[in-house]
């Protein structure tokens, strides 16, 4: 249900574009609905519905504020015969001081990253790492084993074998790194997807709470549930999404390999949970939603930070591995 005399689309969609929530974003629909309600609630001067009325200022007092379902006329008993029929007590928005941008700030952090579509910038790395893993785990060891079946003996054979063993050592070391780094990539995408999902659902929950508050004016605190997914534990989950293992992933198969890895990761890692937007006053509902938004972002940040600690550890592993570093010193690019 849209606010009275308004649609599910806000009158000013510029804020959504500014937030990067484009028309093709999955979050756009609920972002628009939420923004439309916020426009309505933030501009009581444009309608005759909910507002915060400021009582007690008529005689120079500081006044007190109270939510009301519409305009409140001054009491005629205060100044008999002096109150025009269309007069009303001063008022402000039930969400006075809030801005729409606060409510879609979280969405703006995850709206633009391209991680779910198969042609994203992470997909080639995922394929390359899968292949690096395969090389170190299967291909190169197999090649070295074959060497011993050649029936080639002598000094030349011995030094060639030593040379191949050194390459096997290096590819083996880097294969361990690739295995761990490969997991980081789909997990990053899954965290973004999870945060998106939760923010979208929280926005939908907030809109439902607004609708209920407006239509029913419950006498007690209302609460609206929304479907969340658990973000905690994604980074630490012991899973491997290595799509190779039997053959090299060629460039033409990069996108399909990513789709498989991402779908598997999202299916395994995003577990359903629940959230709620609750409160009695309009401001309580807004605060409840904003608290949820903050929690979602904090949970997401914790997972990203964990992934980053892993990548940081892998950089140290790479820089401190004597076999890799000696190999690079001997055969790597010259400074």
């Amino acid at each position, binding site marked *: 249900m849209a606010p009275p005399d308004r649609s599910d689309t806000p009158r000013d969609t510029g804020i959504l574009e500014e937030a990067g929530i484009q028309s093709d974003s999955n979050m756009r629909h609920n972002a628009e609905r939420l923004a439309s309600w916020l426009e309505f609630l933030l501009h009581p001067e444009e309608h005759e519905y909910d507002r915060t009325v400021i009582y007690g200022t008529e005689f120079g007092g500081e006044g007190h504020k109270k939510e009301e379902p519409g305009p409140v006329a001054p009491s005629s008993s205060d100044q008999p015969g002096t109150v025009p029929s269309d007069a009303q007590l001063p008022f402000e928005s039930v969400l006075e001081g809030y801005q729409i941008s606060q409510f879609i700030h979280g969405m703006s*952090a995850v709206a633009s990253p391209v991680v779910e579509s198969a042609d994203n910038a992470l997909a080639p790395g995922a394929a390359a790492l899968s292949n690096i893993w395969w090389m170190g785990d299967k291909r190169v060891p197999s090649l070295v084993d074959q060497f011993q079946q050649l029936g080639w003996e002598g000094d030349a054979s011995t030094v060639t074998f030593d040379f191949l063993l050194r390459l096997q050592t290096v590819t083996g070391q880097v294969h361990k790194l690739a295995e761990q780094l490969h997991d980081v*990539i789909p997990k990053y995408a899954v965290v973004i997807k999870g945060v998106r999902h939760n923010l979208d659902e929280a926005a939908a929950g907030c809109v439902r709470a607004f609708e209920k508050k407006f239509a029913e004016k419950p006498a007690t605190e209302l609460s609206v549930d929304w479907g969340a997914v658990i973000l905690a534990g994604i980074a630490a989950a012991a899973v491997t999404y290595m799509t190779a293992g039997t053959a090299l992933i060629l460039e033409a198969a990069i996108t399909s390999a990513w789709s498989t890895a991402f779908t598997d990761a999202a299916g395994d890692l995003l577990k359903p949970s629940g959230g709620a937007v609750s409160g009695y006053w309009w401001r309580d509902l807004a605060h409840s939603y904003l608290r949820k938004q903050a929690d979602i972002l904090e949970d997401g*940040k914790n997972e990203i930070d964990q992934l980053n600690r892993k990548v940081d550890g892998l950089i140290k592993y790479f820089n401190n591995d004597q076999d890799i570093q000696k190999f*690079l010193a001997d055969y790597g690019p010259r400074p």
Partner: protein
Amino acid sequence: MSTSGGFTVRLNALGSYEEEIGKLVTEYDTIIRELDLAALDGTKKASLVGEPEKLISAGGAVEFAESCRTLVGNYATLIDTLRQLHVAIRSQFAHAQQAIGDSRALYAKVDDDHALVFESLLGDRSSGQER
């Protein structure tokens, strides 16, 4: 099989092995091209991280995006390093392929030279027969 003064070699097997390493080098070419594609320039990095600071300059959304930016940056560093390493690995396998090919050619030449010596010793009789 050729055997001579401390070495044994099967030229056909060595030739097949040289080809196998050649295939491996080609596979490393694929990996290097993929690592090239995986390299993240400014535009690609931007495609992976939101910009909530354009809306509000601080807060949880901005902190979340900063963490994402750090992760993507470190990942990009590691991908660059892996590319350098794999260029080196690829070049060494190519070197091994070349060296095995050269060795095979030398073994084949020794075998041919050896055969030629004896063919020469037998040459008068065989030549006579042909005439």
